[in-house]
């Protein structure tokens, strides 16, 4: 994975590739256009020289204008000048900089995980990584969803993350706010393998609130990006990132999602790659679950517990079970999952009729205290006691005066 142990020719090619990746506004589609019929070293040389073939290929890309091509040509010429001054091949300084920051480079088609990318319609030309490399032996499940999740989505993402981690399955996600980050945090906390794909350079933490999670994934899992150090987050880089999440996921689970948005892009990308998509059912009144419910209506498999995802994973490749285990162990694990759920439920099973009545009411969506009082006919004091119980036992949660079902 590192530049050590690569031949000189490989290093020169990698250097040219990283120079190309570092060009401003360079994205996966443009890189593919550049590299479609020539290698990176040729590409950058021809770009500098302004060869017609290269320029025609670039002009065919959306949003590329003459000004951008002029900038690229200038940058390419600079790269050669830098190389000439230092006496090293093109891009050697960039390679050294990434190595200094502890970032490894991987050309997907030539990596250990090449099989993932074999039939991919849009494989990344180069991946920047931190932490451990993707191990093709470890099963991977994508967990994605809306950034603005409800208490329900949060709980489900946590349970899925923890459950998958317990089964030794890697959680792949986009390290975003909301479902993505919550699932990965839960997986990390449960000691499971994780892979996070981000839409900016590995030093450009976005969103900033996920800084700790970002660092933890880099330390204990795999942090991947298509972009070199220093590349800032830009809106078009996130859908591109989502296609990598989809490609890396053997099964994709949508926890909560609106009918449009990044998660739906990931779903489309997964469908394009024949990855099975599963969705977590939610209340039909919840806008946050509208997309997930639509997927179910369209025939996606529902996720009611972690075991559903694991079965789908096994069905995906029966020759390679989710983890090395016998049928009995699996039963045992299956029961463990069931038992934990039961234990959680039994420990705080709302015995009080009012508690159950409130939960029924909350199932339909968030409610205020007044609405609960109106629907249940209970006094504020009784409601307060019941809500206090429900909140402490994790059944319900409150934000800004709105009560939500948390499980």
């Amino acid at each position, binding site marked *: 994975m590192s530049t050590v142990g690569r031949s000189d020719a490989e290093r020169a090619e990698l250097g040219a590739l990283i120079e190309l990746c570092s060009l401003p506004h360079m994205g996966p589609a443009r890189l593919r256009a550049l590299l479609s019929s020539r290698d990176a070293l040729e590409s950058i040389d021809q770009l500098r020289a302004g060869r017609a073939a290269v320029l025609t290929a670039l002009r065919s890309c959306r949003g590329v204008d003459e000004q951008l091509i002029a900038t690229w040509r200038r940058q390419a010429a600079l790269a050669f000048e830098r190389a000439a001054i230092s006496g090293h091949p093109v891009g050697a300084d960039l390679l050294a900089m990434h190595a200094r920051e502890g970032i490894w480079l991987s050309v997907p088609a030539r990596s250990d995980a090449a099989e993932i990318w074999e039939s991919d319609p849009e494989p990344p030309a180069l991946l920047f990584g931190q932490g451990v490399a993707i191990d093709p032996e470890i099963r991977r499940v994508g967990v994605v969803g809306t950034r603005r999740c409800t208490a329900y989505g949060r709980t489900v993402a*946590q349970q899925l993350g923890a459950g998958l981690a317990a089964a030794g399955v890697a959680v792949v996600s986009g390290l975003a706010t909301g479902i993505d980050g919550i699932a990965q945090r839960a997986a990390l906390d449960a000691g499971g393998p994780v892979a996070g794909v981000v839409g900016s350079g590995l030093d450009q933490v976005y969103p900033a609130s996920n800084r700790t999670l970002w660092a933890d994934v880099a330390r204990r899992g795999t942090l991947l990006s298509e972009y070199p150090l220093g590349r800032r987050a830009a809106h078009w880089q996130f859908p591109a990132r989502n296609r990598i999440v989809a490609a890396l996921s053997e099964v994709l689970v949508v926890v909560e999602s609106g009918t449009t948005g990044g998660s739906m892009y990931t779903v489309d990308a997964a469908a394009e790659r024949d990855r099975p998509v599963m969705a977590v059912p939610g209340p039909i009144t919840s806008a946050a679950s509208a997309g997930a419910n639509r997927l179910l209506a369209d025939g996606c498999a529902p996720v009611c517990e972690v075991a559903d995802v694991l079965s789908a994973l096994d069905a995906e490749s029966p020759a390679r079970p989710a983890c090395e285990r016998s049928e009995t162990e699996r039963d045992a694990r299956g029961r463990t999952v069931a038992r934990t759920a039961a234990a959680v439920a039994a420990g705080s099973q709302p015995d009080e009729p009012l508690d159950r009545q409130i939960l029924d009411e909350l199932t339909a969506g968030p409610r205020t205290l007044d609405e609960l009082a109106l629907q249940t006919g209970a006094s504020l004091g009784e409601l307060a006691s019941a809500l206090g119980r429900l*909140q402490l036992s994790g059944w319900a949660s409150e934000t*800004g*005066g709105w009560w939500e079902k948390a499980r």
Partner: protein
Amino acid sequence: MLATATTATLVGVDGHVVTVEVHTSNGLPSFTIVGLPDAACREARDRVRAAVLSSGLDWPDSRVTVNLAPSGLRKGGAVLDVAMAVAVLAVTEQVPAESLRGKAFLGELGLDGAVRGTAGMLPLTDALRDRAVVVASEAYHVALAANPRDVHPVRTLGQLASVLAGRAPWPDPPPVPPQPPPVPVPDLSDVIGQPSARRAVEVAAAGGHHLLMLGPPGAGKTMLARRLVGLLPELSRQCAMEATRVQSAAGLPLPTGLATRPLLRSPHHTATVTALIGGGTNAIRPGEISLAHRGVLFLDELGEFAPSVLDAMRQPLEEGVVRVSRALGTCAFPARFLLVAAMNPCPCGQAGRPNSCRCSDLVRQRYLRRLSGPLLDRFDLRIQVRPPDPDQLLDGIRGEPTAAVAGRVAAARERAASRGVEANVELSGAQLEHFAPLTPAAHAVLRERLRGGLLSGRGLHRVRCVALTLCDLASDEPLIDAERLNEALTLRASVGRLHAPATAA
């Protein structure tokens, strides 16, 4: 020739005694005022001279110098007019100089010699309590409220001169003006449904707990705030005196005597720091928080106030007094008020259910970030107010009237008074420990909350305080049990974070 008369000037909300010295000497006729008069005070030259002449009295054909002592104190306003005029009359021997002894004169003069009242009559009279104070007839009842040794009302300068010269007795005090018909106080029974909001308003009134209402426009937040004032008990003499002093100093219209009803002040959200806290260039004036002293300060659209304005309120909220320092000097204004605020949870105004409005995360975070955590912490009661249910609106069942709730509030306030405070909100941690012990079950609830990160140390104290008020309202033993705590916790919605702390997975 020299004569002196006593009067007072207003600094902030306090009167300061001022001695007016008048000296006449030979020379070209002139009239000079020295001793730091402000613009209104300097204009007294023309008013005083015209008033003396219109009253049929003589103005000296000599050099008249008026000195206002102490000379280091800045004198503002027209309230010194009468004192200057009588001192001039004394120096010209139109009234005996002895007749001014033991008296003080407060009032503005009209060009026709009429004596008028000014702002701040109450604190000014208060500063002159050991003298017989001569005031304008119209200000008689306000001045009387300060309980001075004697108050004499006069209508004109001519009348005053005849009394001082011994030609006439003091005029009779004006009759007590007919009490204006009581302003109809909006009744709580107008609030239909909305049990939690009604409860929060009652608890806020009983315990003096600051209240934050979240909800869309039209949910009835302003309506609730107006009814909250009606629930507050009559002010005690001491409190009424404090409140009336500020209102008098600010020139607000006053009732006959002391203002015994708590005031509702609702400044618009464009208010500046100076308007809210106090200050000003010419004189240091009390701000809205002081005008709401012992009353209610209602801030509608809290999120639209400038963050600097809101944060400036933090210290007065804690101390009950605000010290405004300017180059002119420093004033301490009382500012112990009940803060009631209303806001939308997000800027789109739809304020819908979670995840249903169109505001992005960033926009909502930015909106809530305008409210600093320490300010939000001051609100013991935070509730979500939604428009009442249509069925309830139409079925015509009215809620509990103000009178019934006010009775409970008054009883709760009496219990607070027995603990040595005006309201429970003023109780310290140690006092709470003493007055409001927790049951073991309540201990357990709090422990779990604290452990789960659902409650901060500061929040713990506030929740206990609200729970004690709930006990007081129910006229129960002040023993905090789990049910009371839970209700106090429920009336304290989490605001300022997009997500409640994660519950156990």
